C-alpha cells in the first residue's frame, strides 16, 4: 500500500487543523474502537462557509481526507458543501488505497454532521435539507 504524494502532503502538513471556538456547526463522526474519529468545525456567514477546521484521530488517510475535505468546502455556499462526495475528496487527493476509501466517507460524513448541527441550531430539521448521517458501522465496516 502506497499513498499518493498529495495524500502525504496533506498528512505531513495538514491544512485547517484546529478548532473554531464560536463555530456555527460542529460534527463528530467515527469511533475510537475503529481507530478513527473526525471532528469538523464550521463558521458560516450568510450561508457561506467562511472557515472550516478539523481535529482527527486516525491514520494518515484519515488526516489527509480531513484536510482536503475542509479545503474543498472553505469559501463555498452551504448548498455546495452539502454536495461534497467522498469521491471528490479521493480524486482531489489523487486517489486512496482501496482499504482507505472509508476514510473519505468519514470526511464527507463529518462535514454533513457539522452542517446538520448548523441547521439544528437554527431549528431546521437536517433531514429536510436532505442530510442523512450514516451509522458508524456502515461507514467503517468496523466490527464493533
Amino acid at each position: 500500500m502506497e499513498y499518493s504524494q498529495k495524500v502525504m502532503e496533506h498528512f505531513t502538513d495538514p491544512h485547517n487543523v484546529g478548532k473554531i471556538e464560536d463555530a456555527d456547526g460542529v460534527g463528530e463522526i467515527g469511533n475510537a474502537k475503529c481507530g478513527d474519529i473526525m471532528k469538523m468545525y464550521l463558521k458560516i456567514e450568510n450561508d457561506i462557509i467562511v472557515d472550516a477546521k478539523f481535529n482527527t484521530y486516525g491514520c494518515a488517510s484519515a488526516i489527509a481526507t480531513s484536510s482536503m475535505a475542509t479545503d474543498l468546502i472553505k469559501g463555498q455556499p452551504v448548498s455546495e458543501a452539502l454536495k461534497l462526495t467522498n469521491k471528490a475528496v479521493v480524486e482531489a487527493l489523487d486517489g486512496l488505497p482501496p482499504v482507505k476509501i472509508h476514510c473519505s466517507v468519514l470526511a464527507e460524513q463529518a462535514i454533513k454532521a457539522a452542517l446538520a448541527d448548523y441547521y439544528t441550531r437554527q431549528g431546521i430539521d437536517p433531514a429536510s435539507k436532505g442530510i442523512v448521517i450514516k451509522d458508524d458501522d456502515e461507514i467503517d465496516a468496523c466490527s464493533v
Partner: protein
Amino acid sequence: MRMIYADNAATTAVSAHVLQEMLPYYSEQYGNPSSLYAFGQTAHRAITKARGQVAAALGTTEREIYFTSGGSEADNWAIKGAAALGKAKGKTHIITTTIEHHAVLHTLDALKKEGFTVTYLPVYENGICRVEDVAAAITDETCLVTIMYANNEIGTIQPIGEIGALCRQKGVLFHTDAVQAVGHIPVDVQKDQIDLLSLSGHKLHAPKGVGALYCRKGIRLPNLIEGGAQESGRRAGTENVPGIVGLGVAITDAVAAMDENAKKLSVLRDKLLDGALQISHSRVTGDRTHRLPGHCSLCFEGVEGESLLLLLDAKGVCGSSGSACTSGSLDPSHVLLAIGLPHEVAHGSLRLTLSDDTTPEDIDYILSVLPPIIDRLRAMSPLWEHILEAEAQGKKLY
C-alpha cells in the same frame, strides 16, 4: 537524513561476513549439490557444513536439521505433519496460544476445516502462557502442542523448557516457532525437550528465503513438498545453496556474540522503554523483563499507529505497529487484544526492535523525535480530548 532501522523483528540486514561467505555460491561455486561431479559436491559440502552449524547452534545433530524456504514453511510442515501423524492414531486435538504467528494460526485454521479441534491458551496481561494451562488442556486426543518461543509483537519469552518437559512426560509432540528467539536468546532443543522447531534466516542477519526445521530423530513427518531426494528425501527442491550457507554462518555468528549482544541490547532496550514511558499515557506491552533483549513494544493513548509510523519515518526512524490500519484488517493485532488491551489503546501501538548495529546515540535520537510526534498527533486528536475530558471528571477511559 540519518536512517535508524528499528524494525529488526521484521527483518535484519545481511551481515558483511554472511554476505562474503555466500557470494562464491552465486558465481564460482554454482554447482547443483545433487550432481555427482566434484563441482556439484563442493556445493553439497557447503550445505553439510551449514547443517552442522545450525545443529550446533541448537544443541543437536545435523541429521535432525532440514532446510526450508523460511519460518512459515517450517511451521506449516511441522504442524501439518504432526497433525497427520496424530490423525493416523485417531488423535485430532492440538493446543496452542492466542498469540502465535499467522503461519501457525492460519495453518491450524486449515486443520480445523479437516476436523481437528484446537485449544487456544490465554497469555494473561504479561503476554506469557502458563504451563499449568498447558497441562490442564492436554487430553488423550492431543497430538500436538505448538507454542512460540518468543513473540514477534510484544517480545515475551514463553516457558518453553517447562512446556517441553511436560509434553515429553505426557507423550505429546511439542513444536515451537522459534523464529524470533534463535540467535537472540539461548535455545537448546535437548534441554528444552523440543520435538520440532522452526527458525528463519532473515531474523538473524542471514538472507530472506531460507529457514530450517529441527525434527527430532525418530519423528517421521510426512513430506510437505514432494519431488527430488534433497534433504534426505524429506524436502524436495534444489537447495538454496547461498542462502543455506548464509544461514549457517549467521547462526554461528549470532550464537558466538549472543551473550555480549544480549547484554548490550537489553541496556539499550531499557533506555528506550524508560525514555518512552516518560510520555504520559504510555505503557509497555508484554512483560517488562521477560522479553527479547532488543524488543521494545509500547502503546500511546490517543494516537493511531500508522500516523505515528509515518511521522517517525519522516524523521528517518523505521518501526512497526499493530494498529488496525497497519495490520491491513479492521481490528488491531490479535496479540495486543490477547493481552487484554482495548482496541482504542491497541491502535496506538509502536514496536521498535533493535539490532547489534543500534547505538546509544540512535536511542537518544529516537527519544528526541518521538515525544514531539506524539504531542503533535494528540494535539489534533478528538480521542485525546475525550481522554482528557474524562480525566477532568475523575474518570479513566482506558
